[in-house]
């Protein structure tokens, strides 16, 4: 029997999977809604997307805070020993960039909303402040940036998933067990 290796904390695991679902769901809604003609459905999806985006922003901040207070378990020595230098660099760069985008993508969406003159009222109840003034011309310019950054995040997620699957099915090093929900 293999000795148990240190896992992510239960909180980190819960936040990881909750945010995975929320982020991919928001991306799917975002990609779908922007092509719709104006309708109540489009309006509804835009607002749901914004509410989810703010939730993702807050949960990502919480997650970052948790990560700083509870450092992730280091890569097991037997795994790290087999990784070339570029893989180790890519491993850290991907995680770092994903965290940047977890925060920047929702913030750009929020900024776009404010600039376009459609402030966010979280869950239809809590009006959020506009941290940038209404500027419809600038809004038009930054709207695609929100999308491009989201696609960049999607590409990083794809890379992250591909690497995880490689560890699981090619290297068979059991690395995924550190982030698997449930008991070790």
């Amino acid at each position, binding site marked *: 029997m293999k000795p148990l290796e240190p896992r992510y904390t239960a909180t980190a695991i819960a936040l990881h999977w909750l945010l995975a679902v929320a982020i991919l769901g928001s991306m799917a809604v975002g990609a779908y809604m922007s092509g719709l003609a104006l309708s109540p459905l489009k309006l*509804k999806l835009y*607002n749901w997307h914004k509410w989810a985006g703010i939730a993702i922003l807050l949960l990502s901040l919480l997650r970052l805070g948790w990560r700083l207070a509870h450092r992730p378990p280091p890569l097991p020595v037997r795994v790290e020993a087999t990784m070339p230098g570029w893989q180790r660099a890519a491993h850290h760069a991907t995680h770092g960039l994903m965290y940047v985008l977890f925060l920047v993508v929702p913030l750009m969406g929020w900024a776009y909303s404010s600039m*376009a003159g*459609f*402030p*966010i009222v979280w869950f239809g109840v809590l009006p959020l402040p506009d941290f940038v003034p209404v500027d*419809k011309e600038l809004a038009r310019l930054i709207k695609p940036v929100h999308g491009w950054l989201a696609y960049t995040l999607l590409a990083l997620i794809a890379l992250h998933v591909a690497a995880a699957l490689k560890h699981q099915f090619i290297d068979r090093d059991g690395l995924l067990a550190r982030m698997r929900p449930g008991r070790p």
Partner: protein
Amino acid sequence: MKTLATALIAVAAAATLATGPACAQATPAKLLPGSEIAFVSKQLGVPVSGVFKRFDAQIAFDARNPAASKVAFMIDTASATIGDPDTDRELPKAEWFASAKFPQASFQSSAVKALGGGRYEVAGTLTIKGARRALSVPVTLAQAGTNGTASGSFTLKRLDFRIGDGEWADTSMVADEVQVTFKLALAGLGAP
């Protein structure tokens, strides 16, 4: 003869002077650039504001005899904009203002009452999209000489006028209440 003529003129002049102020028609005022008619509607709780870019008014106002004042508005419904091209394209359509069939919304006053302190109550009929509703609007007039700024706001129910019909009639998406605010820069008001 000359004396008689002079006397007649004098009598006529005296009569005019005597009856003048009380019976004078309120002078027609002119709408100046900078006047604004705006509205705020709520979409899923989000306040979305817009303006009507084209409107005209016929205002005859006499501060000394407010009851003789008359206010009429004609608003070009196709000029509604919230500054979002996608939405602006929808507004003149049949579900919203149906501008092809009802190019103008209007307000016609029936009574103007002074409340004191430059405040007035203007009652009348608001007609949008062929639907007529009685409306009473509080107006504040800040007058300087014959120029002035009339401002105020009121809330209407958009479904009274079928603005946002069909699938848009759902008030959980777009609230029924729409707040209308106006600020009118006026010239040619009767002397205060």
